[in-house]
């Protein structure tokens, strides 16, 4: 148990003694792989996520290419192979790409934001990283050798499938440990004066996200372990065979999928005030909104495999509708900040990317609401029908309409409409992670990244996500199932699938633009503009902008004392660097 290896320090002076940090690695290629430095660990999380992400997006392209021709299976060898790639794409998009990217950003930036020299349990963080990476590789390989959690329609569970279950459990376990490290760091390592009420919003959003992941992902592990034990038995499989993916599908569906996009709100609340050079208005409301968003995104209860009625429960329905509210609260807070500033924002790639992430999340929230529209509206129409009957009006069409809603939307909920919602939500999370990468590039990479390429990447990815998701949403109403490669031929569905395929190509191109921006930033470096302080190029409000770019081991030269959520704007803030810099 690496988490037990932490020796409580007697004081922060012992924690921050410079000789401690002489032992920390400075180069990822030499001793970085055994590093306990949170910045190295965070960078490796991000690097691994990008590599897995490239693979995931290629899988997405192949899946969408296959669906262009709904009459037959052409790209893959058979329908099962298509489902294997479909489910692999869905699983890896969440657990090998988007969530690890956010964890990487958080592991790097959360200690800096709260003025801490390190993570709470650096070795546990490193253990989580390597467990995730090894398990992720095994998981992909197991899927490739005829494994994967797919619905085969038979009760035979081969060994690669069992390997898929165990390796996915390993991936999930490592994310749980990473979440524990982040949450513990936020609770215990904050600077003096930094209460939970005035932590930076990104850190707050990671606290909420980490908490929800800690509560929900162990339930996913329980699903996987039950399936695995069942599969180890002889012949009879109560938890497998024909519905393997169905058992864990709640983790990739509404509302749980929104738990992977919680940091979108935190990042928006982080970059907008900086762009307007003002404190965020109604900071408390923004914090409550993020907490509320996290609470309603807890989805471990909505397991339709065990409880088919879960998707019509009041919690599920109201949760889907209420998802929009916290997003709007945050948009309102940003708008009030902009109004108070009475001037235009300082334009940057991260601002544009954060805005795009919010657009993607809002769109996903709208689709989520459409999915539950029947559960919300059908009872109302039924009630109106009863009322009209009671007062003697013969409005039978109201009852017919309610019945039509129930029937048709039940089918839509299981169609590719769900895929559209998932795609948009995860793309929002990814855009937020990329916005974070551009915003904190001086701290993460030591260089600013080119704004133009960032905006192009964001527009390409958002455009691609919308172009691939909207046709999926429409074809969902035309009865296209989410999983099936070959379906009764419909010309319009095929056209929509073609558009969707083009969208997935754009998303891939967008990620390519991000990588190009990173390459340009690292190779050519930051432009030598004397007006821009490389340590704080955006005029940030939070503690990470006090350190050098990239930060030295130990992050801060001394303990910091803060009194508000934007300490660098406080008149009474004692900047430990100001005196020496003179």
């Amino acid at each position: 148990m690496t988490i037990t290896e932490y020796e409580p320090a007697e004081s922060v002076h012992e924690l921050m003694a410079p000789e401690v940090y002489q032992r920390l690695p400075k180069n990822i290629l030499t001793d970085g792989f055994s590093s306990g430095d949170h910045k190295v660990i965070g960078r490796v999380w991000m690097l691994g996520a990008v590599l897995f992400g490239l693979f995931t997006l290629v899988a997405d392209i192949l899946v969408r290419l296959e669906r262009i021709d709904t009459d037959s299976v052409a790209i893959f060898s058979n329908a099962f192979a298509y489902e294997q790639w479909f489910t692999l794409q869905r699983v890896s998009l969440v657990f090998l790409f988007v969530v690890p990217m956010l964890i990487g950003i958080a592991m790097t930036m959360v200690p800096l934001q709260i003025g801490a020299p390190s993570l709470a349990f650096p070795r546990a963080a490193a253990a989580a990283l390597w467990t995730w990476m090894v398990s992720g590789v095994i998981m992909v390989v197991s899927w490739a050798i005829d494994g994967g959690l797919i619905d085969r329609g038979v009760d035979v569970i081969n060994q690669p499938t069992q390997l898929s279950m165990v390796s996915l459990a390993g991936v999930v376990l490592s994310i749980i440990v990473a979440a524990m490290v982040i949450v513990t760091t936020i609770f215990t390592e904050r600077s003096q004066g930094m209460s939970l009420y005035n932590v930076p919003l990104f850190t707050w959003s990671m606290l909420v996200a980490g908490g929800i992941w800690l509560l929900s992902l162990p339930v996913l592990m329980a699903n996987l372990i039950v399936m695995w034990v069942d599969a180890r038995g002889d012949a009879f499989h109560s938890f497998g065979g024909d519905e393997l993916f169905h058992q864990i599908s709640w983790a990739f569906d509404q509302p749980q999928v929104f738990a992977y996009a919680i940091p979108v709100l935190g990042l928006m609340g982080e970059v907008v005030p900086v762009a307007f050079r003002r404190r965020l208005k109604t900071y408390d409301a923004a914090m409550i909104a993020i907490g509320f968003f996290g609470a309603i995104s807890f989805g471990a209860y909505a397991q339709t495999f065990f409880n088919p009625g879960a998707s019509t429960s009041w919690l599920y329905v109201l949760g889907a509708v209420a998802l929009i509210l916290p997003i709007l609260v945050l948009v309102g807070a940003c708008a009030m900040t902009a109004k108070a500033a009475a001037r235009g924002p300082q334009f940057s790639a991260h601002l544009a990317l954060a805005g795009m992430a919010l657009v993607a999340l809002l769109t996903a929230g709208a689709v989520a609401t459409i999915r539950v529209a029947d559960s919300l509206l059908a009872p109302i129409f039924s009630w109106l029908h009863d009322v009209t009957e009671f007062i003697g009006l013969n409005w039978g069409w109201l009852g017919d309409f309610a019945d039509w809603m129930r029937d048709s939307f039940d089918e839509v909920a299981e169609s590719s409409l769900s895929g559209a919602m998932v795609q948009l939500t995860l793309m929002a999370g990814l855009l937020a992670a990329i916005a974070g990468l551009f915003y904190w590039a001086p701290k993460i990479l030591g260089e600013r990244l080119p704004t133009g390429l960032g905006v192009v990447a964001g527009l390409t990815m958002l455009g691609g996500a919308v172009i691939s998701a909207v046709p999926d949403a429409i074809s969902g109403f035309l009865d296209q199932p989410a999983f099936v490669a070959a379906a009764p031929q419909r010309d319009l569905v095929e056209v929509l699938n073609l558009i969707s395929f083009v969208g997935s190509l754009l998303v891939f191109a967008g990620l390519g633009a991000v990588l190009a921006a990173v390459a340009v930033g690292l190779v050519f470096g930051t432009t030598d503009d004397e007006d821009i302080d490389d340590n704080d190029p955006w005029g940030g409000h939070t503690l990470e902008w006090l350190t050098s770019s990239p930060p030295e081991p130990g992050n801060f030269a001394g303990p910091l004392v803060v009194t508000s959520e934007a300490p660098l704007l406080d008149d009474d803030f004692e900047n430990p660097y100001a005196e020496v810099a003179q």
Partner: protein
Amino acid sequence: MTDTSLAVIDPSMQAVSNAPAGIVPRKRTLQLGTALMTGASIMYFAGLFGIYASTRNSHLRLQQVLEEAGERTTPWIPDSAQVELTAPTIIWWTSLLMSVVTMQWVVYSFKRNDRRHGLLALATTAMFGAAVINQVVFQWNQLGLVIDDVSGTAAASLIYTITGSHVIMICVGLVLLLFVAIRALASSDISVHTDFAASAAVFWYAMFSLYFVIWLLIFITK
């Protein structure tokens, strides 16, 4: 910061000398981390309990429908299985209960730097843990539950998953105790490791509490 950081650090971070006294590290980092992982473990078991309850209810509903139709049914727990409140089950329960007391003895002794009693309490707690594992393995041999295609019920898969997961939790607890013991053996003042012992205790108590639910769910209500 590169050229300024070391100058600031020494002597005693003069640049912040006007600020209030340095950061007082928030205590109980290890306990909080352990509590969070323990909470995650509880959610894992909550997931298992939920699957058990819903699967059993589905089975019983189906059984009722089949019985009303006059068709042959299979019970949730197969007739050949022995999921009863036998002596090993009770000893399993009482061993864990006693280990909770000795675990508190560990924390008490560490807090008072009583090395001798601390180590004795650790060894006793570990012995109870090992005894429980022995009881569980014995119980598995007595259950007569097999994951097969004959019984037509998911009870075997679920009971083995739940009890097996609990055994793994006990093993993790024993590893924690081992680390606590190593720290105690290597230290002249074991009271500095009270935080560590208390963290192990948090995990141990959660493990015991979960067994109580398992006992109710599997051996009482079945």
